[in-house]
């Protein structure tokens, strides 16, 4: 298991934060987990730490429907950031709206759309894929 990777969850669902944390434990994941309640909070944290790779994630799990800045707002602003390394973004949502699913994959920074519920297998796959790079 690659443990040098950091992971960020951008989601307004605090139970979901807990679920991800728990899943990472199951996977024996030892990297850092950053959690943000909406897109703006994440954006501000990333822009403050743009030169600090320790405080930046390698994988972002981004929700769509959130207050303040939703997933789209975050994606639209995300390209303005010049981070010391570019994390890979997964849009993770329980949406069934095919238009939203399609839209998510039109962003070049988005690797894939992942349907909730998230499970240990899906997370491990993401980490493995990123670790190979």
């Amino acid at each position, binding site marked *: 298991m690659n443990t040098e990777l950091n992971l960020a969850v951008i989601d307004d*669902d605090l*139970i*979901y934060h*807990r*679920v991800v944390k*728990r*899943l990472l434990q199951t996977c024996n994941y030892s990297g850092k987990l950053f959690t943000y309640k909406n897109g703006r909070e994440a954006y501000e944290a990333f822009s403050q730490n743009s030169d600090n790779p320790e405080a930046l994630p390698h994988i972002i799990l981004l929700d769509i*429907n959130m207050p303040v800045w939703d997933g789209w707002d975050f994606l639209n602003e995300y390209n303005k950031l010049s981070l010391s390394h570019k994390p890979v973004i997964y849009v993770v*949502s*329980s*949406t*069934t*709206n*095919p238009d939203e699913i399609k839209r998510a994959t039109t962003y070049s920074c988005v690797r894939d759309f992942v349907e*909730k*519920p998230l499970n240990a297998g899906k997370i491990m796959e993401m980490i493995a894929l990123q670790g190979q790079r």
Partner: protein
Amino acid sequence: MFFNLFAVPVFIAVLLGLLVTAKSYTLGNTRGERYFGLSMASTSVYGFFYSLELSSANLELMTLFLKLQYLGAPFIIPFLLLFAIRYTNSDRPLSPLKIVSIFIIPLFVMAAVLTNSFHGLAYTSYATVSNGFFDVLITGKGPAYQLHVIYSLILTLIADIYIFMLLFTVHRYFFWRVFLVFTAITLTWLVYILHLLGIIPLGLDAVPFMFLITGLLFYVGLVKAQFFNVIPAAHRQVFQNLNQGLLVLDNDDRLISANNYAEMLLGLRELSALPDIRLLDQKLPGLAAFYQDVTESVPVNTDLFNSLTGQWIEISIQSFKTSRNQTAGKVITLRDITSRRNTEIEREQLLTLTQSQNERLQQFAHIASHNLRSHCTNISALISFLEEDETSLKDKEDFRYLKTAAYNLQDSIEHLSEVARLHTSSPLPLQAVSLRLTAERAIAGIIAIARSSDVRISHEIPANYHIWAIPAYLDSIFLNLLTNGIRYRSPGNDSFIHISCTEDNDWLIIHVKDNGLGIDLERNKRKLFGMFNTFHEHPESRGIGLFMSKAQIEAMGGKIDVESTPGQGSVFHLWLRKHNK
């Protein structure tokens, strides 16, 4: 032979009679024209020989011509009666036998006169007497003669009564024509009265002279008043009762004519005199403006809302010309389209409402499934974490129920999400799919469960059958039907599911047959393809499968139907397109 001057008017009457005969004969017989023609022809025959009689110098010739007059005389009135009956449209009950019977007495009279020298029934004596100007034939009248006169008198009276009655019922447009006919027949009738009373001035028979007048009246009637021409009356009838309003205005914009519909629509009956366009504009505000826009070549067609009555009126205005190509005025047609207009408005509103409802429903479906799924997956995750952390929880009955409830909730929500996705996503493209491969793949996917349930699955689908379908949908439909077949197998039977296929011009029809429990279609057909309807007690029944299958088949432009007998099994028929639309 000296030609008597008194014979001249008689002879003119003959010529006139022939003219009227010819004229009326060309008109057909819809209003009794032919009968009238025959009557005039009989008159002509009679008049012709009477003119010869008057011109004759000796008794023998006079007697001969007198007898020859009866080749026509007895038939004048019977034909006149037939004309009157037909003209007044009262001939429905008149059979051919009755028509013939009218002529029995006239034929007898004719025969009696021609054979008079043997029996003297018609005339008892002949003598020439001078009336002061010339010699005339004076005869003694026998019973056959009296019979002829009385019979003619009666028939004429009947004919006259028929025509007289018509005066009261006929459209006023017809009145003067009928009155003319009535006058002519009344004159004839008066002549026969004179005959009966024995008043024969100067020893001259007044009948030919009277027929001169009658013939003239009829000729004028035929040529000028067009007795038999009903077209103007028909036009008037159509105009009055037309299903739309008609207003005719002259060059000075005065209303010349309005039909019933227009009068009702604009309330013109309340007006004492026919108004002009300004007054019409008060009844239908805005009409005058359109009216002024109309030129010889440019008509106006528009819908106008009558703010006074709340009606929508469809208007068409155009100018019309006389036969000499001079502008004569304008015609306005009106039609009440309020109900049509209201229907259109209602339909538009309904459509807008339905569209917005549909959009909201889609949004609702997405949000509901999204939010429900989020919460539900969280619950499931938290339960499994609890289970891992507190191993003792597994033994608690309530915890196990909680776990099952969470699982069922998630399952139901997953199905709901699928339905929402199917009904709200834009249609996927159809592609050519091998039916056999699809069926075999579905069978392979389920064969393990089938074996453990002792259900044989077989198919006979030719390798070259292709349909236009969405592969994912088709897989799901097959899997669903096969799962159902296994799930609802009949216990103890040698259970099987067999897939076969037939085709017609447009469709490949797939038949999925089993010998399972079957469904009571009389009670359940309507519910069978509905959402969350189950028919058997089965722990895995969710009542979503056939609903989904039906929706998927319809999304591919096909249809699904079922035959089933409880206790014997079911056959599902699937129609799928052979060709891309």
